[in-house]
């Protein structure tokens, strides 16, 4: 119980905050402040970068409307850098930097606006709804994450229990990650397509391949985490290897498992997104990226990118919550 927890019936009970909440709130500015400052600085940099990046286009628009710009023709302007152009005609370059239709670098508010209209503004069933696309990408992500994590745990159990597997499989597991799997993604998808496997599974395989490795490495560490005296105790009780695994090794490894699951789920999302590139898929976050790059819809690319970022953050946060609840119930975290 926190220090100032009062009985429910006491006078003044329910006014103010409990000790725990107050403590958490007091620490908040200390932690959130710097993060907000860094994010604000990044956004300011982004706005600043918009001016030279979009100067070429901005001056062209101004010229079309009959406003005088310093290098008068597009011919002369073509070889000039964005910064030089922005300095030559600062007022026009600044005024038109942030609201262009197809900017080279869309401004933050344009991206936020597009994100808002394509998530909240549209029905989920709409073809342009980002929620629908995110959902389509989420299915192979989660399936691949599930397969990859289970395979990773199984492999780690094998490695911990067999010296031969530790010696022979572990180096190959490491080497497997130096293969740029994303380079194989098109092949896996085309090949599986040719033998009639389509849809979620090929992308899930790529996700699984990307997510198994962090889980294997983390779980090998976690399953070896029990101290020698704990293991000796199990031995004095004549516990079988399976019993030791279930009652000692697995519970001890949980903090490691969750840490690696967070990495794995983010990797699985990357796999699912890249898995959409080679198929020329029409739906999914990766397909939005690809379509945006084909048609020069920069705002769409950026909003798909941020959509993916939000999905990744939500997935990692979900595992974080599960981690907290589980570890707390096990008494491993305060």
């Amino acid at each position, binding site marked *: 119980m926190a220090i100032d927890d009062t009985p429910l019936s006491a006078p003044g009970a329910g006014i103010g905050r409990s000790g725990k909440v107050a403590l958490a709130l007091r620490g908040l500015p200390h932690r959130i402040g710097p993060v907000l400052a*860094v994010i604000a600085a990044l956004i300011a940099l982004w706005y600043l970068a918009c001016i030279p990046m979009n100067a070429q286009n901005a001056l062209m628009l101004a010229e079309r409307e009959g406003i005088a710009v310093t290098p008068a023709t597009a011919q002369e302007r073509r070889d000039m850098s964005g910064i030089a152009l922005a300095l030559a005609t600062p007022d026009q370059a600044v005024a038109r930097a942030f609201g262009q239709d197809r900017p080279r670098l869309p401004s933050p508010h344009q991206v936020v606006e597009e994100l808002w209209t394509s998530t909240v503004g549209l029905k989920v069933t709409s073809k342009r709804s980002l929620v629908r696309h995110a959902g389509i990408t989420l299915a192979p992500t989660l399936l691949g994450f599930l397969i990859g994590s289970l395979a990773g745990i199984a492999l780690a159990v094998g490695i911990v229990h067999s010296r031969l597997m530790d010696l022979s499989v572990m180096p190959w597991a490491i080497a497997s990650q130096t293969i740029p799997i994303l380079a194989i993604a098109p092949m896996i998808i085309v090949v599986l397509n*040719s033998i009639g496997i389509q849809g979620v599974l090929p992308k899930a395989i790529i996700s699984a391949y990307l997510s198994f490795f962090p889980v294997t490495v983390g779980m090998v560490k976690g399953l070896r985490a029990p101290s020698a005296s704990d293991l000796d105790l199990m031995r004095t009780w004549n516990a079988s290897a399976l019993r030791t695994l279930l009652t000692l090794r697995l519970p001890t490894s949980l903090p490691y498992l969750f840490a690696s699951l967070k990495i794995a789920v983010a990797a699985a999302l990357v796999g699912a997104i*890249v898995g959409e590139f080679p198929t020329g898929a029409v739906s999914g976050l990766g397909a939005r990226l690809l379509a*945006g790059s084909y048609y020069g819809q*920069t705002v769409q690319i950026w909003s798909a990118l941020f959509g993916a*970022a939000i999905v990744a953050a939500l997935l990692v946060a979900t595992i974080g919550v599960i981690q907290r609840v589980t570890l707390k119930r096990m008494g491993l975290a305060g």
Partner: protein
Amino acid sequence: MSWARRNQNWLPWVGGTALVAIPIFLFPAAAPAWDILRLLIVWVVLWQWNTYLSRTRFGPIASPLLFGLTLLILWEMACRLFAIPSVILPPPSAIAVALSENTAILWGDWIQTVLKGAVSGWLIGSAAAIATALLVARSDFLRRGLLPVGNFVAALPIVGTAPILVMWFGFGWESKAAVVVVMVFFPVLVNTVAGLADTTAMQRDLMRTYGATPTQTLRLLNITAALPFVFNGLKIATTLALIGAIVAEFFGSPTFGLGFRISTEVGRLNLPTVWAAITVAAVTGSLWYGIIALIEKRLTFWHPSQRGRG
């Protein structure tokens, strides 16, 4: 397996299995059940051999090699026994042939993708990240702000910026290097910042009692303490760099480069060449990782993770 472990006299045992195995290979059988049995026998024999080998002093080197060889043999056998079409999975021998036939083309691809795209981007990105980290580490405020943000960005699907950067920097190697810079930057930054902060109060006090200047403290204490973290970041970055350089080529490239080769040859269903390109990428990735790991071993020999190993 436990029977084999108890049986110290391994030679007759392995020899016996081989004697059983040879007739099975001499008499070609039509039933697929036979083929599966053959694969299983080869697997068991080689695995037993490996079990023995792992207990000798050559184990740490020989075991992984034999395991890799086992996989290759089984792969080749499976391709031949079940007549798997090379469009689905070419046998290793076909890949080796494709590799030797296309050496000149793949060499050009390698220079374009690895040297110009991945390595240059990796160098620029890592250098920028380490420089930024050295600046950030001076301020506790910036560090506390940048670490969560950097960790968040490092987990994002940054590969997705590839279409944007290809749009900005054109189809040449510059855009690939740019993608690599963006992919590599945050993992190295986060690791370096965390590493520079990884000193104990005791160590800092010691530097103070020695009357060390801030520059000396940075050089002798913080940078040394950060090295294991930096190398961890650099190792992650090697894999990311190759992925970035190859994936960026899917969005537009000149008519050479490993990513271009893979995507066009897949379209022509010329799978042996695709696998040859993947082999080149995999060997490059492993060597690159190995080189960084070697340098790490040289520079951070004092770290617990490097002690007690060969």
